[in-house]
């Protein structure tokens, strides 16, 4: 199949970028989107040009490295997949595919389609630690945990931190990411002792990193490659309010 790729090219953060069109005449419908870009890059490199820079790592949809907004949708047209799991069969022969980096002030552009998502790392750091005993594995069933909570925590933990929620949100809100990370630990007994400082710290770090607020549009859950629902944002808000109302925990301010 033949496609035209209209891709954002930008040398670095300081140089202004522009769209460049490339024809890919020999794409196979069974290629992944990145394999198609690999073929294109091979050709561009042979022509003596700089290849298109894009993030990718595991290429099996679990690491969260890949980004890209394809035809206006973060991670492309298919639901619940990352860009690396998007295949050329999702596009039509002769289609123009517009490829853009994730756009958000909190995700500064590095080169072409590569953005700096270290703001997420700063939020994770603000979450602090969890208290677990290391060493030999604990006796089975010594930590009571309702099945419902363990399932929910697992759903939240499936967040791969790709940033598609931020890319799709009209406010560049990171609420879905932060909510998933907060809920994943707050729902489990291991994360309980630091519950309050965790949610307060992470919400504050989210603001400091320059993300917007949540308007409950639901765009984030629609593009999330792991299908994390926005009800987790409600859970985070609940934990935040509960923690904020206490203000002081064990005689000291949190």
């Amino acid at each position, binding site marked *: 199949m033949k496609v035209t790729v209209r891709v954002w090219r930008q040398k670095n953060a300081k140089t202004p970028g522009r769209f460049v069109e490339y024809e890919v005449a020999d794409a196979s419908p069974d290629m992944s989107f990145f394999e198609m870009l690999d073929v294109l890059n091979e050709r561009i490199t042979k022509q003596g040009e700089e290849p298109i820079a894009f993030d990718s790592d595991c290429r099996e949809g679990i690491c969260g490295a890949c980004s890209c907004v394809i035809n206006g949708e973060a991670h492309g047209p298919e639901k619940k997949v990352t860009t690396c799991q998007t295949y050329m069969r999702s596009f039509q022969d002769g289609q123009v595919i517009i490829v853009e980096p994730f756009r958000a002030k909190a995700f500064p552009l590095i080169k072409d389609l590569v953005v700096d998502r270290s703001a997420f790392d700063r939020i994770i750091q603000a979450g602090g630690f969890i208290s677990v005993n290391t060493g030999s594995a604990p006796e089975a069933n010594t930590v009571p945990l309702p099945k419902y909570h363990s399932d929910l925590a697992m759903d939240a933990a499936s967040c791969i931190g790709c940033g598609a929620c931020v890319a799709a949100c009209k406010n560049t809100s990171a609420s879905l990411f932060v909510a998933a990370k907060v809920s994943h630990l707050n729902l489990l007994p291991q994360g309980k002792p630091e519950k309050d400082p965790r949610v307060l710290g992470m919400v504050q770090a989210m603001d400091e990193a320059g993300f917007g607020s949540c308007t409950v*549009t639901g765009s984030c859950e629609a593009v999330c490659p792991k299908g994390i629902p926005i009800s987790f944002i409600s859970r985070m808000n609940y934990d935040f309010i509960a923690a904020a109302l206490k203000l002081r925990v064990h005689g000291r301010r949190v």
Partner: protein
Amino acid sequence: MNSIRKVFGTAVGKKCGMALTGVFLFLFVVGHMVGNLQVFLGQYAINHYAQLLQSNTGVLWSLRICLAAVALTHIYFAITLTLENRAKREVGYEVKELVGASLASRTMFISGSVIFGFIVYHLLHFTTGTTNPEFMTFKDERGWHDVYRMVQTGFSNGWVVAAYVVGVGALGLHLSNGLRAFCQSLGWRFETYASRIDRAAVIVAVVLFVGFAIVPLALFLGGAK
């Protein structure tokens, strides 16, 4: 994080502010709709209701001041959040698919602005009588303010009816997302009943729209006698 100011300074805190002020305004709107519907019980009912409100000056003004303060806080948070959020994406997308986001959720600021404009007009129209000074002189046989005649005369003009339908339409649109956002922001929209909350928000919004729009429409078409 060590003060109320800091808590309400965060994005989540500001959304709580929106939710708390918003739900107060929502409760007022429900009461207002129920009051309006008394027009269908006839002239005595609606005029008596108006007389009841207007004679309790203390209660009336306390409510009015509270409402104005809450509405202004809601608007203050809305403007701050909208300006902040708009500044968070400096370079826009070439193409943007609006996946997952409903029209109502994307246009909260626009529908809110329409409602604000409508409220200003509505106050000038029926409360102060600035647009139609003769409305304030209408008296019934008991000497009460003849609200029945006022709304009947007011809604005999098609343009006025259209303005009211657009105004309450914006209110319905705003509430269809606002009510679920209220539950979401205060942390009550848990997964078990998230979809039920979303549906209920739409139903309540439609009921309010119909409840409000039916008065000008019925009076214009001559349905209420």
